[in-house]
């Protein structure tokens, strides 16, 4: 294919003149009908064959082309009376009120015009002049009654008169208004001829029943033609002016809504079903419009999409692809003298991955079938291209929407698996923000060697372990991996030889160390097997508590690749340890560590067992008692506060009213009940409580979650305060008016374990609903903000000299981020970890 490369110098927009419309038009449209009884397009109708063909079998009367080859041609409608083009009403208005009705000059002296820079300034200064400075003519005030009616001294000016007036404005004056008269004489915005778009731009749909349904634009044009005809008839019959004007207005309405059906002030034109018609402006506008949907929106081939499910057995670099998808997707491989023998195997194969097509150097494609197989095997030689099905090890790009940052798209290596879902290692969930409650993800198969190399070298998962945002791991062991790391490595955990072998084998390690706990193996020793041999590191674990376990499991000590002390919990997986391995040993080693460590610990966890049951949130009777006392105490304190408030003894918090002060004091009192009860509940729980373990090691859940399950739910909030809505002066009819007590305003003293009473349940639902609504609004709002922000920043990039510049090479920052530091190479917001250096 021959290609041309040209740069667009400039684009000029203008208004079509009536002459241009008539000369471009292939035919004049007069009949407000489309097809006759036989389904043949009516001559002079809206589907006239001069406008192009939309029916198979017919020929275009303009170009002779058939459906598909004929590009479509314009027609025109002669309007009996001119109408204003809605979109230009404002410009017409500005011209009318800032030019003299007699001498047609701007209502400002030449010197004054000279001093003003913009068109807006001219209109602003000129519009209210009552006398023309040039000829002295008195000016009357002109008013625009939106969208299209003009009045002068409360007297209607009809479009024909408007046109006569603006026709007289000389070209020089228009130039002062920034209008190029050659391309856009303003009187052309008063329409006397209406262009009719080609038939194929408003195709009709034939329903299964055989009934034909016309496009919205066609409907609108029918309306225009009908009123136009009626107006013509009435004019020739010499109807009274009143009727003529009514019809004229109706014509104006139809032409206006033909251009834009969302004009404020007039009702939108509707389809018979009551649905507003989608006219010209609506076709272009917004997310589903021509620009954003059809022109900027791109669709791709060689992609797949389905539900994702987790698979901790595959590497973080891999993605599990269903066989059905692997058989459908193909990738081209250039045939060379080095790979030809290997590629022939794909042609010979009976089972996937098979060769699908062979492409000759001249571009012809041949399908590989059992019949053509032999011939193709003979024929192929270097220079040919072979398209084969997806196989293990192919590099693909994996993506989950919304693609908010670059790690929303990463390169994975294919692993073809049985099943119907795409499989993802759960460690890679954080960058995609994925979970498995029904999420779907997209897969793209690069089609050139260049694209494959780029994906592999720049986008591979293992190279994205550290996030470019703040330089900390974003691909890490989480949830069960964290619980498992803790359970396996905590002090006193040992494994029998058989199990130790199993765990190491899961991590692909086949060298058993010497047992260190009698004839058993400690979890710490087993975990050490996946650490680099020369690693030395010391840091505080997530479970670290001053004075409790700082000399035991709370502090991690790794010496020469041996875990001497401490547990592997969240801090190890998501912080220091992962970080250090990535930076010191590189991406390959980090990936290996993550894969091995996670597999080792979950294998160990499966031997130990880890589960949550009712027992884990049950509290001893004494604790229940204590919590109840806490609640009672708190309630008394609140009553005290209310008493003080009523006796006007409560001291106001600066900036708050007395009532607000009371509410704030009550809220903090109730908050205290919850935190203190939570503390009680937590302290009553035994070592080995799975719920508590998960929260302590940072696997899942917080102390608050545990509190709400086992102790009490606490105060429910709507709009940031206690609940008071629904009825007059009370939240529900179960309470007295003006009751300020805790129960009536949304305090829930039951726990999820015990269950809520009906009023508590209602308050909880109110709070829950607010949360949901807020979340929805927040995402919608931030999504739009993001769109605007990305649009504003899209061309800004970092140059070689560390300056940040825009598309025109204008400097935005003289040094990237003012300090020239790459956040990806930082360690948690800081360019250097001083502690690490001094160690």
């Amino acid at each position, binding site marked *: 294919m021959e290609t041309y490369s040209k740069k667009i110098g400039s684009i000029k927009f203008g208004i079509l003149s009536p002459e241009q419309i008539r000369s471009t038009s292939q035919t004049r449209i007069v009949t407000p009908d489309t097809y006759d009884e036989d389904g043949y397009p009516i001559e002079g109708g809206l589907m006239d064959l001069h406008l192009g063909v939309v029916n198979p079998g017919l020929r275009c009367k303009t170009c002779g082309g058939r459906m598909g080859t004929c590009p479509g041609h314009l027609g025109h409608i002669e309007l009996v009376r001119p109408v204003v083009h809605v979109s230009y009403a404002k410009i017409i208005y500005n011209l009318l009120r800032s030019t003299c009705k007699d001498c047609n000059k701007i209502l400002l002296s030449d010197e004054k015009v000279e001093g003003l820079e913009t068109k807006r300034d001219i209109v602003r200064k000129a519009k209210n002049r009552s006398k023309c400075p040039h000829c002295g003519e008195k000016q009357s005030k002109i008013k625009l009654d939106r969208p299209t009616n003009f009045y002068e001294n409360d007297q209607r000016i009809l479009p024909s008169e408007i046109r006569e007036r603006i026709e007289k404005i000389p070209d020089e004056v228009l130039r002062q208004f920034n209008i190029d008269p050659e391309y856009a004489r303003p009187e052309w915005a008063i329409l006397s001829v209406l262009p009719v778009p080609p038939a194929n731009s408003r195709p009709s749909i034939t329903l299964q029943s055989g009934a034909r349904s016309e496009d919205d634009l066609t409907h609108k044009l029918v309306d225009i033609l009908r009123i136009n005809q009626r107006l013509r008839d009435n004019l020739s019959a010499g109807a009274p002016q009143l009727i003529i004007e009514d019809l004229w207005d109706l014509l104006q309405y139809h032409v206006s809504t033909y251009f834009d059906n969302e004009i404020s002030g007039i009702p939108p034109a509707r389809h018979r079903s009551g649905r507003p018609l989608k006219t010209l402006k609506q076709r272009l506008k917004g997310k589903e419009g021509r620009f954003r949907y059809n022109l900027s929106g791109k669709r791709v081939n060689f992609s797949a999409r389905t539900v994702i499910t987790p698979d901790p057995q595959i590497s973080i670099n891999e993605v599990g692809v269903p066989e059905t998808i692997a058989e459908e997707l193909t990738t081209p491989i250039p045939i060379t003298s080095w790979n030809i023998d290997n590629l022939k195997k794909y042609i010979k194969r009976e089972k996937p991955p098979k060769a699908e097509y062979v492409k000759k150097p001249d571009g012809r494609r041949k399908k590989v079938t059992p019949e053509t197989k032999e011939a193709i095997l003979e024929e192929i030689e270097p220079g040919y291209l072979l398209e084969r099905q997806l196989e293990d090890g192919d590099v693909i790009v994996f993506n989950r929407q919304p693609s908010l940052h670059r790690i929303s798209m990463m390169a994975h290596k294919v692993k073809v698996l049985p099943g119907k879902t795409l499989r993802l290692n759960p460690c890679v969930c954080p960058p995609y923000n994925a979970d498995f409650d029904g999420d779907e993800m997209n897969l793209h198969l690069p089609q050139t060697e260049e694209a494959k190399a780029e994906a592999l070298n720049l986008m591979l998962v293992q190279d994205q372990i550290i996030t470019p945002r703040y330089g900390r791991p974003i691909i890490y062991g989480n949830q069960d991996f964290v619980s498992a790391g803790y359970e396996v490595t905590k002090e006193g955990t040992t494994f029998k030889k058989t199990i130790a072998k199993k765990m190491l084998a899961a991590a692909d390690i086949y060298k058993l160390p010497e047992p260190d706990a009698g004839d058993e193996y400690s979890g710490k020793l087993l975990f050490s097997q996946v650490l680099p041999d020369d690693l030395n590191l010391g840091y505080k674990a997530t479970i670290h508590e001053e004075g409790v376990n700082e000399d035991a499991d709370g502090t991690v000590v790794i010496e020469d690749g041996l875990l001497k002390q401490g547990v592997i919990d969240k801090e190890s997986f998501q912080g220091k340890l992962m970080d250090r391995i990535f930076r010191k040993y590189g991406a390959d080693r980090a990936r290996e560590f993550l894969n091995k460590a996670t597999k080792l610990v979950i294998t160990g966890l499966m031997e130990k067992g880890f589960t949550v049951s009712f027992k884990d949130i049950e509290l001893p009777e004494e604790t229940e008692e204590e919590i109840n006392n806490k609640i009672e105490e708190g309630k008394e304190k609140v009553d005290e506060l209310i008493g003080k408030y009523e006796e006007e003894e409560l001291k106001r918090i600066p900036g708050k009213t007395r009532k607000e002060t009371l509410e704030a004091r009550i809220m903090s009192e109730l908050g205290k009940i919850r935190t203190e009860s939570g503390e009680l509940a937590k302290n009553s729980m035994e070592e080995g409580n799975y719920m508590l373990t998960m929260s302590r090691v940072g696997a899942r859940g917080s102390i608050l979650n545990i509190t709400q399950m086992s102790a009490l739910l606490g105060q429910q909030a709507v709009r940031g305060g206690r609940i008071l809505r629904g009825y007059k002066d009370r939240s529900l009819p179960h309470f007295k008016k003006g009751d300020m007590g805790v129960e009536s305003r949304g305090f829930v003293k039951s726990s999820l374990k015990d269950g809520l009473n009906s009023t508590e349940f209602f308050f909880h639902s109110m709070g829950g609903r607010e949360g949901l609504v807020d979340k929805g609004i927040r995402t919608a709002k931030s999504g739009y903000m993001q769109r605007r922000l990305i649009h504003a920043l899209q061309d800004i990039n970092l140059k070689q*000299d560390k*300056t940040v*510049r825009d598309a*025109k*090479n*204008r*400097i*935005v920052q*003289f*040094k990237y*981020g*003012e*300090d020239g*530091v790459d956040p990806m190479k930082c360690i948690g917001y800081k360019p250097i970890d001083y502690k690490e250096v001094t160690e």
Partner: protein
Amino acid sequence: MRGYNLVDSEIILKHKLVPEHEILSEKEKKKVLKEHNATEEQMPRIRKDDPVAKAIGAEKGDLLRIKRNSITAGESTYYRIVV
């Protein structure tokens, strides 16, 4: 009437949020442009009627050196050309 009258235009230079602005000599200006491999058009702009530009009496074509406090770098240098 819009806005308000400044009693003394230079008073803003004393405000804690207004960084130090300095007019560069022609020689310095050339040096800075060369250093950053930039033309005058590519430099960030400041209007001649900007309150600070007025206060220090900057003329069109002058290059201002601005010393700002920066969260990342402590202190950063920025340049703006008067238009």
